[in-house]
Every structure is written in structure tokens, then in C-alpha cells.
């Protein structure tokens, strides 16, 4: 009987796994990320390089509305650095006592500035395509951060027989393969302060790390609390098991 059950369960599992694999297309490889796993932490250097790529490349078209400058403490910047960095940008404030809106340097509590004032303006400037907000991009696409990395490094010449319309570009992993965004990261698009060579793969990896951070800024707190909770539960479970054994012993 037991073996029959196992057989059924096994068959169901193989069926579901096999077909689930087959229906997932296109494929992209899993990358190694320092923030994966039970003890994962973000690579601070990669986060700061990734922010630089975001700031100098992505932010020309993409908003990041959930992020405030103070959140950059999470990539390893201190208060003074954040203040200085925020002041490089302007935020619309007001109305003032005269009823006028005015521009002032951003403060750490301000949100990242969006490149366009609304979605229609963004579409108008990008050939009708809306550049998505990047705050949560590392978890609101199937495949998450691995997908983002594969997309950024997935530009290629269209295979024979595929016609790429005007204003579109071929990408190996984008659903449908035709994407409005031109290859965003060109070799040496940025100059890293720490001397890291700015290859496409390096920048893609760095900016994806940064996007994983903006999607889950609490990841490190989550992991470290999680490990403690797990340790506590393992000990508690062991104690309760011993208590159960002891209490039930007299019964049999």
C-alpha cells in the first residue's frame, strides 16, 4: 500500500515538474548572487557600482518611485554622503507663501526624481513605449533578478527570418523577443571609481544587484532575523519532542 502511494505521488511530481519545465520559455541561466541563500548579504561594492549605473544610464528614462535618498544607507553610504548626493538633484516643493511651486535641492527624505512628469510624457519621449518603474523590477518579472541580468545581456542580432520593426530591438529573453528599449548598457558606459572594468556583464551584474536591493531593501534584516528564528525553532522543537516522549511514555 505504502509503495503504491509513493508511486502515485512520484508520478504526480514527475508529471508536474516535467511539464512545468517544458512550458517555461525562454530559458535563462541562474546567476550566482551574494545575497542569495540563508546567510546572503548584498555586495556593498556591487551595490554602489550598480547605483552609479542606474544613476548614469537607467535613470535617463526609468523612474524609481519607491526609493528615497535615505534608503541609500542600505548600499553603504553614510549620512553626509547621502546629503551631498541628494543635493545634486532638484525636487519640486511648494506651494510657498506666494502660492508658487519652486525647485530646491533634494533632501535625504525626498524620493528619487522621475525623468518624466507623467506616463504620457514618458511614452511621448520613447516612441510610444513606457519605460517601467524600476523600484520592484527584480521581483515583478518572472525569473526575477536572473531575468533582469539575462535581459540586459540578452541583446543580439535577430536570427534569420525575424524582422525587427523600426524602433524595436531583438532580445533573447524578452517575451516575444522584440523590445523597444535599445541595448541600455554599452561597454564602458560608466567609469567606475574603484577601477573595476566596466564590461557589459560587470555593469549588468552590478545594476541588477542594485535593483535586487531596491526591490527588497529589507533582505539582510530578513535573513539575519530568519536565521535566529530558525535556530530558536530547532531548539524549541527538540525540547518539545523530548517533552512529548517523556509525557507519553507512561501511556504505552
Amino acid at each position, binding site marked *: 500500500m505504502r509503495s503504491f502511494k509513493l508511486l502515485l505521488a512520484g508520478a504526480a511530481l514527475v508529471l508536474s515538474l516535467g511539464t*512545468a519545465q517544458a512550458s517555461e520559455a525562454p530559458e535563462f541561466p541562474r546567476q550566482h548572487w551574494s545575497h542569495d541563500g540563508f546567510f546572503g548579504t548584498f555586495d556593498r561594492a556591487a551595490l554602489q557600482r550598480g547605483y552609479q549605473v542606474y544613476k548614469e544610464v537607467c535613470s535617463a528614462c526609468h523612474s524609481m518611485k519607491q526609493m528615497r535618498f535615505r534608503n541609500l544607507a542600505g548600499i553603504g553610504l553614510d549620512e553626509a554622503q547621502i546629503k551631498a548626493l541628494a543635493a545634486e538633484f532638484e525636487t519640486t516643493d511648494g506651494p510657498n507663501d506666494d502660492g508658487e511651486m519652486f525647485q530646491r535641492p533634494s533632501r535625504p527624505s525626498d524620493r528619487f526624481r522621475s525623468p518624466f512628469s507623467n506616463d504620457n510624457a514618458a511614452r511621448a519621449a520613447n516612441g510610444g513605449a513606457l519605460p517601467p518603474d524600476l523600484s520592484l523590477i527584480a*521581483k515583478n518579472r518572472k525569473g526575477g533578478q536572473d531575468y533582469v541580468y539575462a535581459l540586459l545581456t540578452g541583446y543580439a542580432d535577430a536570427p534569420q527570418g525575424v524582422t525587427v520593426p523600426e524602433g524595436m530591438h531583438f532580445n533573447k529573453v524578452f517575451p516575444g523577443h522584440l523590445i523597444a528599449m535599445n541595448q541600455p548598457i554599452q561597454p564602458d558606459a560608466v567609469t567606475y571609481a574603484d577601477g573595476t572594468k566596466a564590461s557589459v556583464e560587470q555593469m549588468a551584474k552590478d545594476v541588477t544587484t542594485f535593483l535586487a536591493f531596491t526591490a527588497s531593501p529589507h533582505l539582510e534584516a530578513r*535573513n539575519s532575523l530568519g*536565521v535566529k528564528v530558525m535556530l530558536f525553532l530547532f531548539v524549541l522543537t527538540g525540547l518539545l*519532542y523530548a517533552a512529548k516522549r517523556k509525557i507519553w511514555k507512561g501511556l504505552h
Partner: protein
Amino acid sequence: MAKYDYVPSPFMSNPIVKWVDHRLPIFEMVDQQLIKYPAPRNLNYWWNFGSLAGVMLVVMILSGIFLAMNYQPNTLAAFDSVERIMRDVNYGWLLRYMHMNGASMFFVVVYIHIARGMYYGSYKAPREILWWLGLLIFLAMMATAFMGYVLPWGQMSFWGATVITNLFSALPLVGKSIVTWLWGGFSVDNPTLNRFFALHYLLPFVIAGLVMLHLWALHVHGSNNPLGIDAKGPQDKIPFHPYYTVKDAFGLSVFLIVYAYFVFFNPYVLGDADNWIPANPMVTPPHIVPEWYFLPFYAILRAVPDKLGGVLLMFGAIAILFVLPWLDTSRVRSGRFRPAFRVFFWVFIVVTITLGWCGAQLPEGIPLILGQVCTVLYFAHFLVFLPLLGWFERPRPLPASIAEPVLTPAAK
């Protein structure tokens, strides 16, 4: 309600306890229904899932109340308010992940609880009303979970709500009006979100009330047990405390390890990536799927080419459970003594899981056909197999009492 030979616990002679109990016998109730409450001595770990479901209800209500303090049920603010909880509220991410993954855990626990009842015949006389109350809890849970999923106002929230509420439009004559009435307008919009939030807050307390009735009905005849035979005397029963309090506590701790794994290390895996995109009525996601715990019913809905037929069959898949006590014609409760039933039971489990898989696929090709086959098998289990099994099956002989096989291991 105490039908057994009740011997009060020592604390019952405390003068304060006596003073209170003379006016409101609350200590007596706790002592009779929780501490000295006689339970069958042979309950296995599948019986843990009832108390686990109770714990999950409490976890969901508590985490939900704190989330509600920071949530804004307005289409313009809902998504951002949830992100604010995740990013700026102290331990907001923890509350949110406990609640989000807690819904999945609640359903896992309840599905196992229901399956246990089906395997051991816990729905049979005299526990039919207990079974009904459990099904009502299940229905209320489904409504609560559905409306809760709408609140973050992501893409799947919006489109899931649109698809599911639109099901009612399949009803003849009144369908369209009912949908408008549900929405509070002509599409899923702010009034819908507002009322869903109000109802999502209300229904858990309705569930809590139903749980009280469920426990009341349970305590009239006591728990069923793996042998499915009635207790013959005091040697068949043991007091709930400490035996089952410690067994439930151990089971809870194991369960919490699984729950904590999802909350802390894999909080997104049970949800849909699309729900991290703010709702947009102008963009339909390529593939609208409900949460995993609705997938078997979603597959049944889509197995029928006709919309009304699909809706009726989907609701029928749950409605049929209400008459299960009469569809199962066997007088033996426990599957342990029903060799043929056991095979059909596991086939039913595989059929249901397969339906769940089909529900997650696009309704075409193999998943569609497989879904249709499994839908037929799902209903056949209740309408054909179970009624016939009672007549054709030769159950194995039942033990004379619960204590007999427990105390004389040779009898195994």
C-alpha cells in the same frame, strides 16, 4: 456538556476560581473542555492540523490588524501604502510576509485537515454538522483570501478580481446586475476595493464564530480517531492536557519551521510576480491565474466550454462536499479498514493535485484535456465511486476497542 466522569483539576478548589465560577463558570469550562477533556488515545499526527488551523487564524487576524493600521483602501494609494509597510514601517515586511505567506499556510493546513477527515471518515454520523461547519469555514476562508488578494492592488489583484467577479455575469437574467452590484460601479474600481477591505476585515471574525461552533459540535461526540470506532470506555481516552497539548505544541513547532522558511527565506515563491506591478486597467497580464490554493477549482471552471456550466460545476465541486456524508455509503469510517477505498482516496488526491497543476497552465492542449478528465474523475469520486464502494467493498474486521490494538502490539 461534560458527559464523562469529570474529576475537577486541583486549581478548581481555589477560592477566587470558585468565586468567579459561581457567577460565570469559565474556569469550569476550560477545565472540562480543554484540560480534562477526554480525547481518543490513538490520535496520530494528522490530527494536529485542526489546532494548527486555529493558530493560523489567530496569526492572520493579529498580523492583519497591524497591517490594516497602515493600509489605505484607495486605488490611488493602496499599492504605495503596501510598499510603505514593506519599506518604512518597523518590521512591516515581517507583518506583510507573515500575512501573505500565512494565507498559503492556512490553506495548506486546512486542505490537509479536510483530507484527513475524508480518509478517516470523520464526516460520518454523528459528525455531519461538524463537517458542514468546517465546510462553511472553508468557504468563508476562500472569500476572505480572494478579497485579501485584491487589497495590494497589483496587476493580479485587479485582474483576478475582474475575472472572478465576472463569473456571476454567467447567471441568466440577473447576472449583469449582480456584477454591477458587487463592483459598486461599472468596473472593478475604488468602491470595489473599499468594500473588499471592509469585508476582508469582517469575515475573519465570522470565521472565528464558525470555529466556535465547529469546536462545540466537535466536543459533543469528541474527536474521531484513526480506527474510526467509537470509544468503549475510559481506557480508550486520555485527558487532552498534557497529552495532546504537548503533542500539538510539538507539531506546531515543526509547522512553524516550514512557515518561517517561507516568511524569511522564500517569501515571493508562493505569490505571482505580476502582483508587484501596480494595477493597470489598460494592460491585461498575458496569463491571469489565481493563487495556488484556488487552482483546482479554477481548472474545473475552465474545463467546461460553457461559462455558466463552468461556474456551476466550480461551485458544485464544493457544494458536493456538503452531501459527502450520504454519498459515502460505507458504514466503516476509517480508510484503514477499507482496502478499495484507500486506492480511490489516493487517486482522488492525485486528481485534485493534477487539477491544481492544470489550473496554472493556459487552457489549451494537454492541460485542458487533462483538466477535463480530472474534473470527471473528481465528481466521479463522489457520485460513482464512493456510493458503489459501500456496497462492493469488503472492509477488514474492526478491532474491538481503541485500547486493544494500542495496548497489545501483537494485534498489529
